[in-house]
């Protein structure tokens, strides 16, 4: 057995164990348990011990029996160090140890002797690290957003780390922040405005983009190449350089504080990418179908309605979903154009709420949950259609 592989295996696997246990401890702390220490030295020693014993035992026992033994042992020692822990905490530790033991089971004295075994050990544990770390870092803010919205200001002042949700309380108490933002801060209205603006943007953008994309994909005209590159260049231009002129012109035309003004701007900013995505798809439709249609004396309007549209439902729906998401998430223009609380979109309303330092943070988080859920729902539900569009660069940001 190579000494280098052995040392790497022991160290990395036990650090990984420490890491898993620490994350569990952080999550438990957020449920109001008092934990002050990660016990780095003890857990590392235990981890090294377990990995070594695993090597020594090898496959003399069935792997399930082995991991049960390790888990019971570790849970017992951990429970001895941290007295008076609730049962669910220990169950969690037990589960982590089972997972960990099953992961290290495949290492034995033989495969640590193979070529590149040390590199393989490092790579495999880095992958595990990565999966746990990435999921934790990404989901943690979303988790905090959700649990904060169920707490009260007083409870958070007493123990700022206790995010446990008391499900025993009355539904009205539990969802108090949500009732407040809908009653006092008129979030129902903002949801309606946001939906209206987003759906409106989708419809207008499609009405403008489908004919234009068809022209770019199929027809020959002077300046076609120029137009195709312009679409890309225009798409690169940021909203922040448009803001001042649009603000001045819209103020003078009375289009500020007006949902119509917002619709115009959103449509214009999403048009380039909609045209770009649609023309790519239209090009993939066989030309013969249209030639047959021309024989039947159909004009371009007929061709688009009767041939192109039915064939490109998937592309059109994915463009529609994108435009919806862009319009729903948009913030800069709604900040610039809307001052009157009666015309706010959801994003602008949340920003307005936070402008008041007195606003309790659970209301802010409840608002954030309300604005986030539709987008994540659409994304997860239609992911298949959306991912390919993302790589085409459809969401600017």
């Amino acid at each position, binding site marked *: 057995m190579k000494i280098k592989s052995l040392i790497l295996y022991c160290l990395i696997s036990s650090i990984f164990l420490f890491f898993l246990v620490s994350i569990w401890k952080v999550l438990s702390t957020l449920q109001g348990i008092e934990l002050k220490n990660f016990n780095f030295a003890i857990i590392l020693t235990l981890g090294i011990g377990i990995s070594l014993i695993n090597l020594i035992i090898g496959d003399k026992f069935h792997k399930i029996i082995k991991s049960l033994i390790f888990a019971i042992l570790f849970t017992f020692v951990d429970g001895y160090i941290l007295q008076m822990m609730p049962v669910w905490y220990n169950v969690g530790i037990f589960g982590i140890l089972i997972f960990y033991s099953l992961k290290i089971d495949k290492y034995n004295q033989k495969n640590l002797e193979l070529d590149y075994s040390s590199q393989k050990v490092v790579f495999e544990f880095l992958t595990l690290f990565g999966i746990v770390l*990435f999921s934790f870092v990404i989901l943690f803010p979303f988790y*905090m957003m959700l649990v904060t919205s169920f707490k009260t200001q007083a409870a958070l002042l007493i123990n700022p780390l206790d995010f446990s949700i008391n499900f025993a309380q009355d539904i009205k108490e539990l969802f108090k922040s949500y009732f407040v933002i809908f009653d006092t801060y008129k979030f129902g209205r903002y949801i309606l405005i946001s939906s209206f603006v987003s759906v409106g943007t989708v419809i207008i953008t499609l009405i403008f983009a489908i004919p*234009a994309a068809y022209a*770019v994909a199929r027809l020959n005209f002077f300046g076609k190449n120029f137009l195709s590159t312009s679409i890309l260049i225009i798409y690169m231009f940021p909203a922040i350089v448009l803001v001042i*002129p649009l603000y001045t012109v819209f103020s003078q035309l009375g289009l500020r504080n007006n949902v119509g003004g917002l619709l*115009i701007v959103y449509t214009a900013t999403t048009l380039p990418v909609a045209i770009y995505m649609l023309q790519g798809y239209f090009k993939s439709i066989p030309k013969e179908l249209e030639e047959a249609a021309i024989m039947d004396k159909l004009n371009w309007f007929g061709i688009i309605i009767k041939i192109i549209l039915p064939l490109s439902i998937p592309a059109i729906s994915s463009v529609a979903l994108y435009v919806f998401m862009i319009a729903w998430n948009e913030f800069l223009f709604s900040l610039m154009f809307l001052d009157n609380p009666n015309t706010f979109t959801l994003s602008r309303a*949340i920003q307005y709420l936070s402008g008041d330092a007195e606003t309790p943070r659970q209301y802010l988080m409840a*608002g954030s949950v309300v604005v986030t859920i539709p987008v994540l729902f659409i994304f997860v539900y239609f992911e298949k259609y959306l991912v390919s569009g993302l790589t085409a660069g459809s969401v600017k940001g």
Partner: protein
Amino acid sequence: MSDTLSKIEKRTAYILLLPAVFLVFSIILFPIFANVWISFKEVGLKDIRIPEPRAKKIVKSIKDSSDEIKIIYKLRNSSLILDIRDVKFQDKIPKNSEPLNLDERCQLKSNIIYCDFGNWKAKYRENFQIVLKNKNGEKINKKEIKSIKPKLSGKSDNILLNTDFTLKNFKKVFFQNEFFDLLTTTFYYTFFGTIGSIVFGILAAQLVNQKFFGRTFMRSILLFPYVGPVVALAYTWELLLDPYSGTLNNLLLNFQVIQEPLNLLGQKYLTINFFGFDLKLRLALTTVIIFEIWRYFPLAFLFILARLQAVPKELYEAADVDGAGPLQKFISITLPQITAVISILFMIRFIWNFNKFEDIFLLTGGASGTRTLPINVYEQGFTISDIGMGSAVSIVIVLLLLIFMFIYFKLLGRRADEN
């Protein structure tokens, strides 16, 4: 024959394109050019309001005579700076009533009073009065009079349309605005944000490219930060990072990692003692960059994953036969396969990060050393209320952007040649 066909084709194309091109031109291209115009002008936020003649109507009854009523119009010029020329006024009065001693600037024509007020200076104010009397001696209905709104109109100069130009704004941008500081902050933010998101994108793509339980689930959640609404995510982070009530600081204090709470978003510098050297870290800027990496690495991840999945499996199998280790495989197979994607990604992310406004605005508002060029546009235009200055900074952004885009398209072109 074919000539007419191609003519028809051309005409159809222009008709189909016209609405989209018109809209994009007026909302995106026109403002970019308008910026140039405005940036050479001395315009404040208050100047862009077109001056309006206004009248507030107050109706008062006169004691002891119920058939007479007094109407007071509080007239004023809404602008504090600009004059209004040729102010015209008109208001309806109820039938069966007539004005007494009508002002000589006005005349009555079939129930409507027309007045010609001439020119109003800036800040002009006047209390204009009309007494109405019912012809039949009946009581005049106050509500009816109140419900009618007077109409006013006038002509005025639009400060945006005259041809007074000045170089003041650009002088201020380059010499008074701590321009160098602004530029370095923007470049720090852009560069490290881009590099960070690409590095984490590679790591995440390498992860998801392997087979493990819950892989599709993992791919979905990796994209959450990218598709979530920026307002919600920024405020969640702000709460997490708050020095007193924030979860992160409380956790670190609880586990005794730090002794004092860190004001991650409100402190400009953090001094770290590193082997006897005092290193000054730009704390708030670093935090904002980390947020940016967190939010935008999914894009890099997706691009790179798509590329990785297209790498032929035979390459790795051949490497296995040759006895290459995982590290060697990564360096000599994976990296060369993704360099092209990375260079494109670098440019896209660089351009977009360079223009990022919302993220910094929501997290710090540009305070504690996080003021980038886009934040400065907003500050100049709407906090300091100097529209001209805001436009001048926009112009600087556009110029820098054109340079980046030139490089980007050169790069794209070269890549297209290679294929």
